[in-house]
Structures are given as C-alpha cells and as structure tokens.
C-alpha cells in the first residue's frame, strides 16, 4: 500500500435505460501490472473500457488515475491524462501512412503553434524531425519501421493490430487498455503479439488491462484476472484460482451440478446465462 495504484475504480456503474450494463465495478491496477478482464459475450467488458476512457459517463462510482479523479472527463482529456486504448474492431487512420498514424498520437508532444506551422519556423522543423525519429523508434519495437511509409489500410491484419498498439503507446500513457488484441489472429500472430506485450511492459513499465477471449493468452501473461458476467464481477484473483473457480466455470460453460453457486451470483438470469455460455463455448 506504499505506492499509489495507477488505476483505482470504486463502485463504477452505468445504466442504459432499464439495463444495468455494469454494476459495482471495483479494480486496482499497480504500476507495471498486467491484469486480465474476461467474461462471456455481452458481460460488459468493453463497456468498462468505455467508462474508463470517458466515452460513457459512469452513472455511479468514481475512478482515479494515479490519484487524479477522472470522472466526467472527455475522452481526449482522459487520454492526455494517461489512459490509452485499442479497439475490438481495429480503428486505424486508414488513408494515412503508418508513420502518420503514430505522429497523430504524438500531437500533444508537439509545442509549435499555428504561426510556427505557417511560417515554418526553426522550431517547426526541429520538432518535426524529432517526432519523425521518435515515431520510427517506436515502430522499430513492433518491427514496423520498414512499413513506415505504407498506407495503414494496406497492412496485413496482424500488423494493423500492432500499429494500433504502437499508436496507443505514442500518446505517452500510464495505463494501456487492450480490447481483444488477439481476436482473429492465427497462432503465430498471437505468439508474436504475446512477445510484443511483454516487451512493451518491460520497456515502458506501464500497466496493462487486457480483454481477451483467447484463454491460453490470458492465462499466460496476466498476473491477475477479473471475471465479469452480466455486468458484475463474479471472481477475481490469480489465473490458477480463476481457472478452478466454479462460478467462472458455470458462467462460461453453464451449470448443472453447480446450480447453487450460480444462483447466488446470477440472480434470476441464471438459466439464460447457462445457454449463452454453452453457445459461446461451442463456437
């Protein structure tokens, strides 16, 4: 408890009309920690990301980044404060080059103003050169430096995912939110991604919150895991604890013999939870 946690969320909740999408969400992430957020489809994982990045305003609860209260801030303010994210469905600036994608995220690190841009002052050139160098350095970590001048839309899928992470890193954040980074990747690409995540964590010393369906990836890299179902946290702890937690198993696979356990957490929606879980498992 000596060091301040990077992220502290207390009793976060949001209601869309009559639907309670996320309820009583608590989480602490310390510096350099990698935490996994898992749960069946529609459990509210991405909604949590949207709350943490200011896309949605929480209807209850509060959250702090490095001791600074983040409630009610707009997305760009949250990003400037230090929470960056990637998206489930990749969102790159497709008509721009790979390097430009990163430079956009560097925007706040520039200090020249409109006048500097119009009159091409020495400061303009110095900063543009410096940012170019930094962008290439960053791309090198992801082995994308050779593709710097390629249009983002023409990148292969795995490289697009990596570029999105690189762009998020360029905002200079303290906490990185990765929304299903391995979705749609083949095993080689996933392996590659795993290596990337480990590298950036070692090199930048940042905290990462990861949403992922690929259980082998989650169990491999995450130090702690929190499980959501119907917007509620049903379990949290070490990966091996989670893997053997009956509530988690019932949320994912449905419950027959563990009916009592599931009944406690999933209230009346227990029957539907079971079917949903089964479908997902089959798919």
């Amino acid at each position, binding site marked *: 408890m000596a060091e301040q946690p990077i992220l502290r969320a207390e009793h976060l909740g949001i209601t869309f009309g009559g639907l309670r999408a996320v309820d009583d969400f608590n989480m602490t992430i310390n510096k350099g920690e990698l935490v996994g957020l898992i749960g069946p489809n529609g459990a509210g994982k991405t909604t949590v990301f949207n709350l943490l*990045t200011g*896309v949605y305003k929480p209807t209850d609860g509060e959250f702090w980044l490095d001791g600074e209260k983040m409630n009610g801030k*707009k*997305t*760009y303010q949250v*990003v*400037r404060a230090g929470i*960056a*994210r990637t*998206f489930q*469905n990749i*969102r*790159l*600036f*497709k*008509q*721009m080059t790979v390097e*430009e*994608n990163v*430079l*956009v*995220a560097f*925007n*706040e690190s*520039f200090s*020249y103003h*409109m006048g500097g*841009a*119009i*009159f*091409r002052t020495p400061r*303009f*050139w110095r900063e543009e050169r410096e940012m170019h160098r930094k962008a290439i350095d960053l791309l090198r970590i992801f082995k994308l430096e050779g593709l710097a001048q*390629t*249009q983002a*839309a*023409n990148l292969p899928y795995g490289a697009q995912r990596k570029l999105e992470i690189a*762009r*998020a890193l*360029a*905002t200079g954040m303290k906490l990185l939110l990765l929304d299903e980074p391995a979705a749609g990747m083949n095993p080689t690409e996933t392996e590659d991604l795993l290596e990337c995540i480990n590298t950036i964590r070692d090199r930048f010393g940042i905290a990462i919150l990861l949403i992922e369906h690929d259980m082998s990836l989650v169990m491999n890299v995450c130090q702690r895991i929190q499980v959501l179902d119907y917007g509620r946290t049903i379990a949290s702890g070490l990966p091996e604890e989670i893997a053997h937690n009956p509530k988690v198993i019932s949320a994912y696979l449905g419950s027959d013999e563990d009916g009592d356990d599931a009944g406690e957490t999933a209230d009346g929606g227990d029957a539907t939870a079971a079917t949903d879980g089964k479908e997902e498992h089959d798919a």
Partner: protein
Amino acid sequence: MKKSALSMKQSYIVCAVGIAVLFGLLMAICESGAANTYIKGILMTCCIAVIMTTSLNLTVGVLGQLTLGCCGFEMIGAYSAALLSKLIVAKGIAMDPTARFLLTIFVGAVIACIFGILVGIPALRLHGDYLAIITLGFGEIIRVVLQNIPAAGGVGLDKGQAGQALIGIDRIANLYVVFWITVVTVVLLFMFARSRYGRAVKAIRDDEIAASASGLNVTYLKVLVFAISAFFAGLAGGIYAQYMGSLTPAYAGWLQSTNYVIMVVFGGMGSLTGSILSAIVLTILPEALRAFSDYRMLAYSVVLVVFMIFRPQGIFGSWEFSLPKLINRIVYRNGRGGAAKAAIAAEGAGTAGTTAAAKSAEPAGKEA
C-alpha cells in the same frame, strides 16, 4: 520528402520560382493586350473560385464534412466588405484604393469567420447528410436576411418588395492584387494541411473515435477548420463584391454553393492542387462552351457526368501535384531511375488499392 533529391530549401525556392513564372505569364497576357476585359474577368473569377474551392476542400476533403453553405459565408464577407467600402467613401476618408480593398476584404473575412464559429459549434455535432442540410439551411437564412436588410439593398417583405441588388460598389479589385491574395491563401492552406494540425484533421476524417482516443480535441479542431474555411470564403466574397460592383442575395443560396462542392469533388477530395486545377477548368469550361449557346449547360453537365463515371476520385484523387517532385523525377532520373519508377508505380498501386479498399469498406461501414 525524404526521397527527394532537392533539399527542403531548394524545394521552396522552386515553388517560389514557379509562382513567379505564373505571375509573369499573367502580366504578359494582361499587358500585351492579348486579354480584353472579358478575359480579365474570367481570370478574376478563376482566382475567386480557387480561393473558394481550396478553402472549401479543407472542410469537405481534408476534414471530411460535407457543407453546402459556403456561399452564405462568402456573401457575409461580400456584403460586409461592400458596405464598409461604401461607408469609407461616404465619410470622405482619403484612402488608397488598394489599401481600402485589402482592409475591407480582411474585415469581411473576419466577420465571416465569426459567423463560421457561431454556426460551426452547434452544427458540427452532426455528420454527413445532417450537417449538409444544416449548412444548406444556413445559406438560405443568410439569403433571406440579406433580402430584408434595408442597408444591404433589401426593401423588406413587409413593403411588398424583396431581394433588390446592392449596387454602386467601387470596383477596386485589381487582378494582380487578387492573384497574390490567391497565392497567399493557397500557401497558408498548404502550410496548415502539412503540419501537425493537418495530420490531426485528416485523422478525424479517417476515424473520429480513434482520433479522440489518440488525444485529439475533435470538437475544437472541427470548429477551427470550419472557421478557417469561412474566413477564406469571406475573403473571396469581398473580392467578388468589389470586382462585380453589385451584389444580389440570391448568390448566397444553395445553387452556387453546390457549384463549389462540385469543383472540390471534381478536383479530388483532399487534394488542394486538384482543387486549384478544377476551379480553373470548371470556371473556364462554361465560358469556352459559349459557342454552343443553348446547349452549353447541357454539355457542361455531360462532361461532369462522364468524368465522374470514369474517374470518381476526381482529377487528382488525394494526390498533390508538386513542382519539386516533378523536377526530381526529370533531372535526377539517370542515377535512380529504376528506384524512382518503382516508387511511382508503388504510389499508383497504393492509390488504386486505397480507392478499392475505401469502396469495399463503405458498404461494410453502413451495415455496421
């Protein structure tokens, strides 16, 4: 930029020389007597169209927001400049005509810019068709208001008469001065587009959600671009007023605005040099087709339709013409011909690929 054999400084010099040559050409045409008033008038209209189209392209092409109210801003600038000019004359303030011209168009532009911010803040919450309709409505509001302001020549609907022209504006627009204003406008827009601001604006065009997730203040940047567009539209209006000598409110309506949007699309969305070319071509084309008298507007439309079928991305697409790059290709071809050619081929393939990708992405985006 890194690939060019000319240094950055040399590139700027080349561009400056190019502009100087263009000005020399303009002077030669005008001074030799080859150009009568008619030709000079067309050249003036070209300059106005270039300012309007390039500044509109910043909003429509670079920011990716369709607006149909640019002539509303143009007329705010035009009427402000005209009335100020008249006021200066009426008060008997001694002033050099060129100084008066520059002062009035600048004031007109600033007023248009203020309106741009006022309209932009609420309007830019919307996208696409909705924004187009709002700005279209704005243009119509300007038209109706102008028709009813006594000082602007309007008599007022309550008197049973509306929409009279504002006449008797001093025709002090000088072609050479206007040429240099056009040059400055285009240079300023280029500098803006090729800076961190331009990059940020393009990012908003490509993906607004990702742009804000990259730390960009999307609302601020949108209003900024809208205000810049309005400023230069107002500037063009001031020139127009003091070239024509009279103004009618009808010009603020949607018909003329659509014309400028056509020019932007025709030149290529996001390509400022494309806008320059298309503004000139589409200003001259209806004049050149005068020989066909009755059929000329028909021919004009056919040209547009055929062009859009065979080259939907516009003349230049998103490519920019660059004099230094051209010189690099011609002069330094020997040493690195193969590489240069490969680069050109790759560039072409890249553009084609993007267009195809953009096309296939569109229906997918709509479904989502």
